């Protein structure tokens, strides 16, 4: 009995070691693994669902192309992109100067293409009846760099009025939840809402440091719904998905209160909206036909429109999409 068990045990061990060596020797044999057509996409987690849905549809017609879509965030995406690791970088904001510089240093040229629009919703709990509409001045007074330490809505009123707002802010506890600094949603919000006021007042373009931040949008929604007089902001898509637990506040960017809806965002009426982009590596276009075919498909008639029916972002106005198409055609002709 002992003998037979221990034979088996040793046979097992030897088999394991053999497989191990066999395994170690295969990499050399398949070093050319990347030979099948492939497209590598990374970047904004906001744009990720669009690129994913396009990739899926593209794969239905072109099952031979391997496509990877990741969503670590716009900044991380550009880092990979400018290191030449990805073919396309999804972005929820335009590329920053220092990122452009990094790309130039690495000798990477790119084409910038707008693909959709995303609104940012300012949210409160569904139980909060005290607030209907907020101006940029109110938001600056509540969340901006000068609001550090405030924990009652009413305490922000003085600064808001100084900035020209007439909104009545309720005497209620203020608890703020929003995305953290690493997020493109944070950057867009700060730039669009605080940009002008902060510059005028000589303040840093940032939020107050003392609010609850999370990289997980569901956690933000949970934070906002968790307190009856909360305040926060998140992408329009997330807000619409969670309309049962959080309420969108209308925003006044200087031309009256506007509720965020697909129509007001697309037309530019709603003041906190941003463009969503894809950046395509030009050098990779030249050597990778699958990449060109994928972007062709991305911008083809009707593709994004049908994708945006499933993925809750807002389509570009027709002329803007047409602009993206001609930029793309130009980039292809330039090669």
């Amino acid at each position, binding site marked *: 009995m002992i003998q037979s068990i221990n034979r088996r*045990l040793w046979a097992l061990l030897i088999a394991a070691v053999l497989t*191990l060596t066999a*395994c170690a020797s295969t990499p050399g044999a*398949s070093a050319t693994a990347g030979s099948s057509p492939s497209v590598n996409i990374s970047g904004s987690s906001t744009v990720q669902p669009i690129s*994913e849905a396009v990739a899926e549809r593209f794969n239905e017609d072109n099952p031979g192309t*391997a496509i990877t879509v990741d969503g670590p965030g716009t900044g991380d995406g550009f880092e990979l992109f400018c290191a030449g690791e990805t073919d396309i970088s999804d972005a929820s904001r335009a590329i920053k100067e220092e990122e452009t510089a990094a790309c130039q240093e690495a000798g990477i040229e790119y084409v910038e293409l707008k693909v959709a629009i995303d609104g940012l919703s300012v949210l409160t709990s569904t139980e909060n009846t005290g607030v209907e509409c907020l101006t940029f001045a109110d938001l600056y007074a509540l969340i901006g760099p000068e609001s550090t330490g405030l924990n009652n809505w009413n305490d922000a009123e003085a600064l808001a009025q100084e900035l020209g707002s007439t909104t009545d802010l309720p005497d209620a506890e203020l608890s703020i939840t929003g995305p953290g600094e690493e997020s493109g949603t944070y950057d867009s919000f700060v730039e669009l809402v605080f940009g002008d006021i902060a510059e005028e007042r000589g303040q840093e373009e940032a939020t107050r440091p003392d609010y609850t931040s999370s990289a997980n949008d569901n956690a933000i929604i949970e934070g906002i719904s968790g307190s009856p007089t909360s305040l926060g902001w998140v992408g329009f898509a997330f807000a619409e998905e969670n309309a049962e637990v959080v309420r969108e506040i209308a925003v006044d960017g200087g031309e009256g209160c506007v509720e965020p809806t697909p129509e007001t965002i697309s037309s530019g009426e709603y003041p906190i909206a941003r463009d969503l982009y894809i950046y395509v590596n030009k050098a990779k276009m030249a050597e990778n036909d699958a990449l060109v075919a994928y972007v062709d498909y991305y911008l083809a008639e009707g593709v994004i429109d049908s994708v945006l029916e499933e993925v809750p972002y807002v389509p570009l106005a027709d002329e803007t999409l047409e602009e993206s198409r001609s930029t793309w055609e130009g980039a292809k002709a330039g090669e």
Partner: protein
Amino acid sequence: MAGASTAVPAVVVRRSLAGQGADWRGLIFQGLLLLSVVITLLFLFILLADVFSRALPVFTERGGSFLSSSLSSSAARSGVIQGLFGSFVIAIIVVIVAFPIGIMTAIYLEEYAPDTRLTQLISINIRNLAGVPSVVYGLLGLAVFVQLLGPLTGGRSVIAGGLTLAVLVLPIVIITSAESLRAVPQALREAGYGIGASRWQVTRSLVLPSAAPGILTGTVLSLSRALGETAPLIVVGAVSGYFSTGNASTVDQLFGRFTALPMIVFNWAREPQQSAFGPLTAAAIVVLLLVTLSINAFAILLRNRFEKNW
């Protein structure tokens, strides 16, 4: 201390003989023990009931297609096949890398190495390694298997992920194997040497067969630990979104991008459309639970198969 501990039973005995009152301290202690069991089971039950009740609709509506579909941006088409494949490959890599190296290290440390300061230092350090947070192993995997050995592993591939997890569970394999080797009665070894067997013969014919059940249980449990890890895979670069493999053969897929079951759970839990992806997350958890449970059941089977009484 010894006097005090014998005094309590003496009092208890005297009281119970005299028919005075009950041993209330004992009763409280027993009550606390029972309470702990109930709390443990309660949390387990709540967790399982919650997950299973949310996952059930997915399995009844989607059936096998949930298991055979790839990742997708649409919840209705999403499935776990790519995660199953990734987790399966990771399991195989852990078995062929961590198990032999870990078990042989344990045999050396317990049976061959002289009991010196150095050996003790090594043993203590291996124990400490088992307590290192898994994300640290992820960084190690990123530096070594993804970047340094990138040309061999294919970069952010399932092979790099599997090797990282193999290194992660290596200390656990060594510790559990060493424990089972230490549990083999010394008399058995002495009997072997007494009849003139060499160290190799004693280890092979006496110690290993007797330690085999413990070694197998420990190693297979470490495998289920490896399958449940997410943090190292995030760092190594498991895909967080969509991926398709095109025309790549199975061998080529080993060197391409990958995902695994716990990664899928993590990503679906972050999806904006929670009304649609919430149940899918629960269903993926159920699949992961079933996979690890069946591995544990396999470990118990193996142990019973090899178990012997001395």
